[in-house]
């Protein structure tokens, strides 16, 4: 357990924030009582199941559901004909703009199936077994089409086209020929040619990674109940029930007030549960059948039909002077979007060079559709892919220059006052401090043995603010309820209680945090983008501060003094005017007990759009040992330093760092979507889609560097996403130093490493 590293001491003494209380939802989670999406059972509930495309790319000629509907026990069958046909409407939902028409077609195919596993029809029946039988009775005639999955193949002139009306945006002039390239992004500054001309050493290199899945252990699950008057309830485990509501309402043309989404506990999301797959289908089936409908994906469906992140190809050309100053950088990113446009290549363009103070650069990004499941957000979407290429290029440069990998990063490090490659002048960033934390860490001096190597890599993520609503109320006994609309994935509700307790001056055990449903509180956007502790936390603090002002007013009235004669301290109002408070301080409990006499219940709401979220930086060091016979990589030790702003609950901040690192290690070493020549995923299960297990990993040393973000009341920065950004490069670089071979194509599976070692030796 690490104490956060504080470069500056602000002198504030916090009593709750920064401690490690037991999370309020902990007991129900360790006793199996917590209710996740699939745990709900309603009277009369039916089971819904989805029929999925057996082809990677095909036109739907006809769908005949009559036999399925006639099967006893089947209460409803649906196809895209049962969903509104939407114009291409742009809707700001979740964390990225979604084209509603594309989303509707992804949720239930319209006209064409675009990937193996694409939903084509769905049934609701009285049992699992009958639902399965009904799916088999649905007769669909397809006209198969050639398919393409590899991103570079999809960009080729003669590639099979997924969308006849897709003309590449961002080329200047609109082309006349349809393409699989949805958008070309471009960001540049300075004079690239001059920059390369000034370089003493240039590297040109290319890296690739495969599509990987967020891998949450809980498959998507929901229950929908549609009443005859159009009022509906949906229980769903998601990262944002307000976004679920909005998307369902828009897809089905319903009033938002008629869709009440109740958040179930969520078993992991990592970005993949910020959109809808089952909820609209369950609503339609519930409407058609007149019963509640539960839909739960199998693991296979999760892999085949929910967003992985993009496979990508990153080429980097980078030049530096002999003293290590990077003079120019050119980055090209090709990202697989899956069946519909919208890969995270835009963010990748923005984050590629974010750690480097480079005057001359040009970054190009390509968003390319492919016959694979539509990609969904995955922890710092786009950034890990970009960092793989850039960090490895920097390591190649360091090697050519004979320069220490820490030194080259220190030399070119961004700091306050430097213009970020993606635009603004950096303020209150902690990259230099994070580098220092690694520089001074004992890990760097641990000697390495034969077949062992060390990789160092840096990473960046913006973190966002956004909209949150908080209700804070004081119960009649002086305990409090803090209610938010932010689903809790990583322990955030503990932090909400802590921040409220800190301001109110009471013990954290006297504050009960809950996550309220869409009918019980105002809007909050998703739990994602590393926003919750920052934005919802900001609202919690503001709400508590409002109540403190109100409590002081009530005390002042009770004592007959002016409000400026009252201070709030340690959970009580204290009177500064002598003789006016014969009974002493008025505690929160006392004021709550007599609230009716001072104006009524003690409650408030804060609804805000939090701005000024601070970006985070991570620097990781990874030691590996590679078995030269098998190519197997063992991770010996891993240290991850990160600029966290202020660790509200240090144990959960460490948890985010350790979890992100583990996912990055899996992405680097083992994870990939393997497709057959027919476009079918061959490893759609946890046996062959190999995520890290307990025996794969060492303890992960998480170093929390605290350079506060003044926009947040306690200086918090988002922490959840940064940690997945450096590991891909850190592992690739470590393998290079362990084997002498530079691996360019992730994952670094044993067979590939062994083949590379052999090729190198020969």
């Amino acid at each position: 357990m690490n104490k956060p590293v504080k470069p500056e001491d602000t002198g504030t003494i916090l009593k709750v924030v920064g401690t490690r209380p037991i999370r309020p939802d902990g007991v129900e989670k360790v006793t199996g009582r917590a209710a996740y999406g699939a745990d709900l059972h309603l009277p009369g509930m039916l089971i819904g199941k989805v029929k999925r495309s057996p082809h990677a790319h095909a036109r739907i000629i006809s769908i005949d559901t009559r036999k399925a509907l006639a099967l006893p026990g089947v209460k409803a069958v649906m196809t895209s004909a049962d969903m509104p046909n939407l114009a291409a409407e742009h809707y700001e939902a979740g964390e990225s703009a979604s084209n509603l028409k594309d989303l509707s077609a992804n949720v239930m195919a319209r006209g064409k199936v675009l990937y193996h596993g694409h939903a084509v029809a769905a049934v609701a029946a009285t049992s699992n077994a009958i639902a399965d039988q009904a799916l088999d009775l649905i007769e669909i005639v397809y006209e198969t089409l050639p398919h393409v999955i590899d991103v570079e193949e999809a960009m080729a002139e003669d590639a099979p086209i997924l969308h006849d009306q897709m003309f590449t945006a961002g080329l200047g002039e609109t082309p006349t020929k349809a393409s699989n390239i949805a958008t070309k992004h471009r960001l540049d500054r300075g004079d690239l040619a001059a920059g390369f001309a000034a370089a003493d050493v240039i590297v040109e290199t290319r890296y690739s990674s495969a599509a990987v899945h967020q891998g949450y252990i809980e498959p998507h699950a929901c229950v929908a109940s549609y009443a005859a008057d159009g009022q509906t309830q949906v229980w769903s485990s998601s990262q944002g029930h307000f976004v679920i509501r909005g998307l369902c309402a828009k897809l089905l043309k319903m009033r938002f007030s008629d869709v009440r989404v109740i958040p179930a506990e969520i078993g992991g999301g990592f970005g993949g549960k910020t959109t809808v797959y089952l909820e609209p289908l369950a609503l339609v089936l519930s409407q058609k059948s007149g019963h509640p409908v539960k839909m739960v994906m199998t693991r296979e469906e999760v892999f085949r039909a929910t967003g992985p992140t993009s496979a990508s190809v990153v080429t980097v050309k980078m030049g530096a002077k002999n003293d290590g100053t990077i003079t120019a950088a050119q980055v090209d990113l090709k990202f697989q979007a899956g069946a519909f446009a919208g890969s995270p290549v835009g963010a990748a363009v923005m984050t590629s060079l974010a750690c480097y103070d480079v005057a001359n650069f040009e970054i190009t990004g390509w968003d390319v559709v492919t016959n694979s499941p539509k990609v969904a957000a995955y922890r710092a979407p786009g950034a890990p892919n970009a960092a793989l290429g850039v960090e490895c290029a920097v390591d190649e440069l360091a090697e050519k220059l004979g320069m220490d990998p820490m030194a080259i990063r220190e030399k070119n490090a961004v700091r306050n006052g430097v213009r970020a490659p993606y635009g603004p002048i950096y303020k209150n960033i902690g990259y230099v401090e994070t580098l220092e934390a690694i520089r001074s860490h004992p890990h760097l001096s641990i000697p390495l043995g034969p077949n062992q190597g060390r990789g160092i890599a840096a990473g960046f993520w913006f973190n966002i603010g956004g909209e949150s609503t908080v209700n804070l109320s004081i119960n009649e006994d002086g305990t409090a309820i803090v209610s938010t609309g932010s689903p809790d994935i990583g322990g955030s509700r503990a932090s909400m209680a802590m921040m409220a307790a800190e301001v109110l001056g009471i013990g954290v055990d006297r504050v009960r945090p809950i996550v309220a449903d869409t009918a019980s509180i105002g809007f909050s956007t998703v739990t994602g983008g590393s926003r919750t502790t920052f934005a919802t936390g900001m609202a919690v603090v503001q709400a508590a501060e409002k109540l403190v002002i109100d409590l002081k007013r009530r005390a002042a009235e009770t004592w007959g003094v002016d409000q400026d004669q009252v201070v709030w301290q340690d959970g009580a109002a204290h009177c500064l005017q002598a003789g006016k408070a014969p009974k002493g301080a008025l505690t929160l409990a006392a004021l709550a007990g007599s609230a009716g006499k001072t104006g009524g219940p003690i409650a408030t709401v804060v609804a805000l759009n939090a701005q000024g979220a601070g970006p985070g930086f991570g620097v990781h060091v990874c030691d590996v040992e590679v078995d030269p016979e098998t190519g197997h990589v063992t991770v010996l030790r891993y240290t991850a330093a990160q600029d966290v702003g202020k660790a509200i609950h240090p144990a959960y901040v460490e948890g985010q760092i350790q979890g992100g690192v583990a996912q990055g290690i899996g992405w680097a070493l083992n994870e990939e979507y393997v497709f057959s020549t027919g476009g079918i995923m061959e490893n759609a299960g946890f046996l062959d889609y190999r995520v890290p297990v307990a025996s794969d990993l060492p303890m992960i040393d998480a170093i929390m560097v605290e350079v506060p973000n003044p926009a947040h009341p306690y200086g918090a920065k988002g922490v959840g996403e940064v940690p997945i950004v450096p590991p891909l490069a850190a592992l690739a670089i470590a393998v290079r130093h362990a084997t002498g071979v530079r691996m360019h194509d992730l994952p670094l599976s044993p067979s590939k490493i062994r083949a590379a070692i052999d090729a190198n030796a020969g």
Partner: protein
Amino acid sequence: MALVIADYADCRALTGGLRAFEVEAATVRDLLHQIEARFPGLGDLIDQRMALAIDGVITQDAHGAVLAPHSEVVLLPKIGGG
């Protein structure tokens, strides 16, 4: 007078290649109106798809945000997350 910086190609496509320009505006809302009037399409693009970094602080949809007399406003794509 706010200095607006447009490093992203999709913005520059609407400014005729101009990378930086000045706009007289007191709030972000003002700024967007002025920009749309001067470079048709850009104000809408910013409104729908971009964030603004005002003197280094990234804001999204903060139409009421006040601009200082010599604010630097950097146009950048909206940021999401996972």
